[in-house]
């Protein structure tokens, strides 16, 4: 079954087309990469999918419901979670609270129960905490639970962001340059981690990445975006030898 089907998506900013005639399909549990030169419009596509921007035209159908016009929290509730190119954690809160906030959409007690401190509240808090810890353990962050997010080293902040996204229980996880600023060894670990969470949590992953070794190594299918348009789509080895793609990255050959 098609998980995500985007057709004829357009978005322009003040007359400048950022995304034009963007078409894209993705299956359940698939691992897809979206690559392209800087300024190609990749992050804009992510922002359109997650509801931060409204498209000018086009359809974004996720599990048979149209996401266009929906607010971001609704889109999250339907099962799409993401990370950001420039990490956006809740800096002044603890690692544990960062993940707990993402668990809020399944909060098992009422507002009144919270204020009255009902038994359901204490049970629910316990449940949320166990849930949050579960995600922290996956990323080896459980022993840092009480540290402030801003005090974590860079690589751990990236991992915390992914675990926070997972805590919203998505069926599609969108990662915006997860390996940015990582060294080759860290990137390698991240690759294994992405594979692992996909199989463990049974979700589809869509990622933007500049690190070609990561994209080629982990993605099953790749879309290439240039000037807001898809210029190629296919399996990693097809993309590697695609003339258009090479041109987009290296410029046209001189005749």
């Amino acid at each position, binding site marked *: 079954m098609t998980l995500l089907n985007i057709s004829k998506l357009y978005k322009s900013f003040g007359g400048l087309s950022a995304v034009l005639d963007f078409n894209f399909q993705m299956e359940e549990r698939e691992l897809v990469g979206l690559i392209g030169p800087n300024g190609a419009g990749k*992050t804009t596509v992510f*922002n359109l999918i997650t509801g*931060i*921007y409204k498209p000018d035209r086009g359809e974004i159908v996720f599990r048979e419901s149209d996401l266009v016009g929906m607010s971001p929290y609704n889109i999250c509730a339907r099962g799409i979670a993401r990370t*950001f190119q420039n990490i956006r954690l809740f800096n002044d809160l603890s690692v544990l609270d960062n993940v707990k906030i993402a668990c809020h959409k399944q909060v098992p007690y009422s507002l009144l129960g919270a204020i009255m401190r009902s038994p359901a509240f204490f049970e629910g808090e316990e449940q949320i905490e166990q849930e949050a810890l579960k995600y922290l353990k996956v990323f080896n962050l459980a022993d840092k639970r009480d540290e402030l997010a801003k005090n974590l080293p860079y690589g751990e902040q990236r991992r915390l962001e992914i675990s926070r996204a997972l805590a919203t229980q998505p069926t599609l996880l969108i990662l915006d340059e997860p390996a940015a600023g990582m060294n080759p060894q860290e990137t390698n670990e991240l690759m294994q981690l992405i594979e692992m969470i996909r199989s463990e949590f049974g979700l589809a992953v869509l990622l933007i990445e500049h690190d070609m070794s990561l994209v080629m190594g982990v993605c099953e299918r790749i879309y290439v975006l240039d000037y807001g348009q898809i210029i190629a789509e296919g399996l990693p080895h097809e993309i590697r030898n695609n003339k258009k793609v090479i041109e987009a990255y290296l410029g046209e050959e001189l005749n």
Partner: protein
Amino acid sequence: MLELIQQLVNGLSLGAIYALIALGYTMVYGIIKLINFAHGDVMMVGAFVGYFSVTLLGTNILVAMLAAMAVCAFLGVIIEKVAYRPLRNATRIASLITAIGVSFLLEYLTIFLIGPNQKVFPASAFTVKAYDIAGLSILNKDVFVFVSALVLMVILQYIIKYTKTGKAMRAVSLDMEAAVLMGISVDKTISMTFAIGSALAAAAGVMVGVYYNTINPLMGIIPGLKAFVAAVLGGIGIIPGAMVGGFVMGLLETMVSGYGNSLYRDAVAFGVLILILLIKPTGIFGKDSGEKV
């Protein structure tokens, strides 16, 4: 019809005053994204400097205005240096709270120093005469206010468009970091902005003295807020916007007091503010820009 034109004429001078104050708000906001809450109080200080210049030194009204402008330009620079500069990289809410603090400080220091009572602008400074032109009654004070405000606005436009300082101001408001890299002294430019904005407010203060005939230490609050609304109406950070916004607010206010209930005069200004903020927060001349993610 004549009545309406009369109201319009009355509104023009009030609008000119609001426009002058609004310019200071908009210039400061344009350059450091701060709502300078104390701006209306700088105007009040200007009014008092003008008042003392006339009563103690016996100067004429033009000299008084120039003296007020000079003193307040200096005051504006000091305020920026002491209170706002340390917070330039702080959150906007922190700067706003500081500005509220500066506003209180000016108001209550003035009360502390010269008492809370209002002072009457001496008749020797400006003798009000009425002229009858085509059935309209035109007061010389309205003409004085309108003309001097217009002259100041023309000078401001000249400074911003054609002088080095003006170019630096525009550059800093567009992109502070890039301006630094181009060798512009940001500190100096911001100081200049405060000096010019405060001088305009001071001139407006003296005009308020002439226009309403009385001044008091809390006189800056309401005109300050209204001028701020004017700045937002025109699109905050946009200089021609502040001028247009000022005139619109002045005209609106005279219309409401002329035809409606003057008790609602102040509420109208706030109502206008709410409407703009809800419909088009960037103001009449503003461009929309979303947050980059």
